[in-house]
């Protein structure tokens, strides 16, 4: 019987800055605290009084890893407020752009952030010493994704081409052609990735979860759909704020979210694993095939296997991108005419790490009067803690060092993005973690 | 003089391509007429014209199918002869030794300029002076220039910011071309009166369907160009201009213009005669390879005149003054002519519409 404290003051290989504290007494987990301590940047406040057209550019600055997600949620929410629907090639381009972001973000996470955990390296850079070709494949996948985002968005981080109503400039069919070439390579590389990660050692950790994601009548979800779960949730996005309750916890700069009507303390799960479990039937045949050959069925409840699911989504993103490029004809205008009106609009899109909710109240002059943003990581935060509690309880025998590593790995299952999660939260005085090793 | 009818003009492009030329010429992109590769005459701005004002440029539809019914846009031919960025040389380090690799000029592109205007030919002649006629020769420019074929076009209309007549640089192409066209759309006919300017031009012309020009046709062409000369949107008094500027380095007008000038450098970038460049050192992570890249530069930047301790021309006033006096005064002493051809680009493309003809006039009206 031992008491143990696991303390990670500065989580590595996550986006943003966080810390983990676990205390155990008599082999029982007492406390699990995931602290996300990026200083809040007060986006909701500073959006007030801005022109609606600025929202995609401003909110993109919440997160450099998934700026497209912010731009997509922003434009869809505002378009819903104004009663504008973007269809046809413009809609396809948005999906295509999102494919780029998924592929980029997943390649980054799978290769550079998560795989080192499975293979026992401190970083992908260390991993490259033994597995150079593999790491290079990951980098090339990322690069292909960035090329796609750059062509459509102008640059990979905080793209400049997205606007309410469409784009500033749309590519010609010709311009997309060379990308298709590279995406075909990427699709093969993604399949290779699935095979590679499927062979990783996974701890036995099947859990019961409430998975939440978008669901679209025809497609694997990106920008549209109803919000559903495997426990019967099925709502329009407009009902999001009635359904999701955000609570403050004293130790973190990120709010915890839970679903109304569920038991207090119950968490839910968003992200690739949730999408996969709720939308397997919407994946392309190739992606389904890749999943099956990796030993996954249409459901997967081991979060450690989310690395396989991410890789399957990479296959899908390439497949979908190729489909969209093949069917693309440049639209007559780069953007629909958008007239502001006094209204409120909300939208959810599937960021690489899960649903990202935006709501805007806009006045007749087109100025934002109120904004609300719920990023995926703050929704997953309670789930992560729940996972950690269960996992640590199951593995109390492990050495502290081993357990610490496992905990980190378990956190990375969620690919948490702390910059997002803390973009608007209360700062706890004195909570700044020590990250300097001098 | 010969005449090519509109439908036969594509043969000219074909003939050029057959001879290994890459035709570049005006085409519509992003709301302006720019210069880029031309496959057929359909790539030209068919039926387009432009309206220009200080700081304003707008494309407009014409009510005919003219190919050259506009003046000059934001690009100039220097983009091809004196490109915006070019590698000068490379260095490889091998142990303590350093090996220098100069650029090969033998593969210089073979351009054919379609639709170069008289002012632009003058501008090229001025850059020739800079790069070819001094003690040192710019080999890259030289090989591109040597390979060049020029199809000039005499202007059928003048723009609102044009003043080539004042600068004696247009609107008629008088020298420095292989072929020169005057576009005529009259009485339901659309043809080009062609003047031959070189042996190669004549040889090329023989590969294109053409016929001798009739007197009426050449007269029409002359009349068109003469009319253009009367349409100049701007004028500049050039008599005594160099001395005027030399005597007015401290004129208060420089402060006035400096209050408006953005020091953005647009005027120098669009100017077809501006030639200044900077050089950047480009290194890679291996540490074994370095390259020297030449890039268009502008006398409007702080770095341009930087010497250790600070810039020689920190004030916008001094930078604007340098630009204007270089163009219109010191150029004479350096290269024997004015550095301005009156194309009006710097007036149109200055985001705040600063007009050098106005600046000159203001100094003249109140200067020493």
């Amino acid at each position, binding site marked *: 019987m031992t008491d143990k404290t696991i303390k990670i003051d500065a989580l590595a290989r996550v986006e943003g800055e966080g810390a983990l504290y676990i205390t155990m007494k008599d082999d029982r987990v007492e406390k699990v605290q995931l602290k996300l301590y990026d200083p809040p940047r007060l986006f909701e406040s500073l959006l007030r009084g801005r022109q609606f057209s600025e929202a995609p550019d401003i909110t993109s600055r919440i997160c450099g890893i998934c700026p497209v997600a912010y731009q997509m949620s922003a434009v869809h929410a505002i378009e819903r407020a104004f009663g504008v629907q973007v269809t046809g090639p413009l809609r396809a381009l948005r999906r295509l752009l999102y494919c780029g972001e998924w592929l980029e973000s997943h390649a980054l996470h799978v290769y550079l952030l998560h795989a080192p955990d499975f293979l026992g390296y401190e970083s992908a850079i260390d991993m490259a010493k033994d597995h150079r070709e593999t790491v290079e494949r990951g980098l090339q996948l990322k690069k292909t994704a960035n090329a796609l985002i750059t062509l459509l968005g102008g640059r990979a981080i905080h793209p400049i081409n997205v606007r309410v109503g469409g784009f500033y400039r749309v590519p010609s069919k010709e311009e997309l052609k060379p990308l298709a070439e590279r995406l075909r390579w990427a699709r093969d590389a993604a399949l290779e990735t699935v095979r590679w990660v499927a062979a990783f050692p996974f701890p036995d950790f099947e859990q019961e979860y409430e998975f939440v994601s978008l669901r679209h009548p025809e497609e694997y979800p990106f920008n549209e759909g109803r919000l559903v779960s495997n426990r019967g949730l099925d709502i329009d996005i407009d009902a999001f704020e009635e359904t999701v309750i955000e609570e403050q916890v004293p130790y973190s700069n990120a709010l915890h979210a839970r679903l109304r009507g569920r038991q207090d303390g119950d968490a839910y799960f968003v992200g690739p694993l949730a999408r996969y479990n709720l939308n397997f039937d919407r994946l392309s045949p190739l992606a389904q095939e890749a999943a099956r050959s990796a030993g996954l069925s249409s459901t997967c409840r081991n979060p450690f296997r989310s690395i396989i699911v991410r890789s399957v989504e990479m296959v899908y993103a390439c497949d979908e991108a190729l489909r969209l490029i093949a069917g693309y004809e440049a639209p007559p205008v780069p953007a629909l005419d958008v007239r502001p009106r006094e209204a409120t609009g909300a939208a959810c899109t599937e960021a690489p790490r899960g649903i990202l909710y935006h709501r805007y109240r806009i006045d007749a002059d087109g100025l934002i009067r109120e904004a609300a943003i719920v990023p995926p990581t703050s929704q997953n935060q309670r789930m992560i803690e729940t996972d950690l509690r269960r996992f640590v309880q199951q593995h109390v025998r492990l050495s502290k060092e081993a357990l610490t590593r496992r905990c980190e790995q378990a956190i990375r299952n969620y690919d948490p993005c702390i910059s997002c999660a803390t973009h608007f939260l209360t700062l706890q005085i004195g909570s700044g973690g020590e990250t300097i090793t001098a | 003089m010969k005449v090519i009818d509109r439908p036969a003009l594509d043969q000219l492009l074909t003939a050029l391509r057959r001879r290994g030329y890459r035709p570049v010429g005006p085409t519509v992109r992003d709301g302006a007429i720019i210069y880029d590769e031309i496959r057929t005459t359909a790539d030209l701005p068919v039926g387009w014209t432009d309206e220009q004002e200080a700081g304003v440029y707008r494309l407009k539809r014409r009510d005919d199918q003219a190919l050259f019914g506009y003046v000059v846009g934001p690009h100039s031919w220097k983009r091809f002869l004196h490109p915006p960025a070019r590698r000068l040389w490379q*260095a490889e*380090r091998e142990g*303590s*030794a*350093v*090996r*220098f690799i100069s650029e090969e000029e033998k593969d210089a592109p073979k351009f054919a300029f379609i639709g170069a205007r008289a002012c632009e030919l003058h501008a090229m002649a001025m850059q020739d002076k*800079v*790069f070819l006629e*001094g*003690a*040192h020769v*710019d080999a890259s420019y030289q090989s591109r220039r040597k390979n060049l074929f020029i199809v000039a076009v005499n202007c059928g209309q003048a723009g609102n910011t044009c003043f080539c007549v004042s600068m004696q640089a247009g609107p008629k192409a008088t020298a420095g071309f292989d072929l020169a066209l005057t576009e005529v759309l009259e009485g339901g006919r659309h043809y080009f009166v062609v003047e031959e300017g070189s042996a190669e031009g004549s040889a090329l012309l023989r590969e294109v369907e053409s016929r001798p020009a009739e007197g009426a046709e050449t007269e029409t062409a002359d009349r068109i160009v003469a009319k253009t000369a009367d349409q100049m949107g701007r004028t500049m008094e050039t008599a005594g201009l160099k001395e005027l500027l*030399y005597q007015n*380095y*401290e004129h208060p007008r420089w402060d006035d213009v400096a209050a408006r000038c953005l020091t953005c450098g647009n005027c120098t970038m669009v100017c077809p005669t501006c*030639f*200044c*460049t*900077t*050089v950047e*050192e480009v*290194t890679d992570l291996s*540490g074994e390879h*370095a390259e*020297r890249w030449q890039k268009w*530069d502008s*006398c409007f930047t702080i*770095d*341009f*005149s*930087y*010497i*250790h301790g600070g810039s*020689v*021309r*920190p*004030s916008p*006033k*001094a930078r604007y003054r*340098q630009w204007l006096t*270089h163009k219109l*005064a*010191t150029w*004479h*002493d*350096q290269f024997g002519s004015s550095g301005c051809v009156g194309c009006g680009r710097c007036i149109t493309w200055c985001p705040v519409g600063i007009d050098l003809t106005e600046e000159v006039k203001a100094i003249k009206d109140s200067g020493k």
Partner: protein
Amino acid sequence: MAAEVVEKRREAPQIWTLRLRLQDQALRRRFQFRPGQFNMVYDFGVGEVPISIVSDPVDPDLLDHTIRAVGAVSHRLCELDRGDVVGVRGPYGSWWPLDEARGRDVVIVTGGLGCAPVVAAINYIMMRREAYGELNIFHGIKTPRDLLYRERFRAWQAAPNTNVYLSADRPDRRWKHAVGVVTSLFREVRLDPARSIVMMCGPEVMMRSAVRELLDKGVAADRIYLSLERNMKCAVGFCGHCQYGPMFICKDGPVLRYDRISRWFDIREL
């Protein structure tokens, strides 16, 4: 052109003289220069800067460059060691009127920290001392600490028919020389304006007042030569950076005769 550092000598803190030899024999044989001219010296991966050649033209095999470390390139050049390789293009620009000056008195005026261009002229005269008349060297500095070449000045002072006049704006207690701007010394020294030819380099403010004084003393405008500095990228008149009124310092200069630039000399921020 690759050149090897064959010798390195420390002149003062932050100032070094590099002796360079072109590696290519054929180029070496063709290389001819005159005092006052400069080379573009390139350090791998850092950049290229104009530096005067201060060695004697009789031996163009070895090129001395005295470099003061002020910024990136000059610092790196000063850190080079024997055996290191730099790039050298040149020689460029105009030179001191050392032929014209034969048989005349020579007045050298320098100031500030960098005076490499006139050192080339002084060295040249020293090697051919009898060919020239009286040599008066005026050197102005701000504070005694800026006097970088004490040794050199001492050696020159010891040469026949040669006088060194030093002046400091802000002297300390040990300063034995004149006080004030260097131009004030002209009043105390007897110069024969008709016999004299002036070579000058240094800060432009100093040169402005020096020229004024010398003209007042009756030195003809066409007997005053100055070496000017401007930013330089190409050194062959293409890059435009070194313009000085109608001049390109790289090809019309750096050594310019005063009467040719008098019109521009007093204009600020030219």
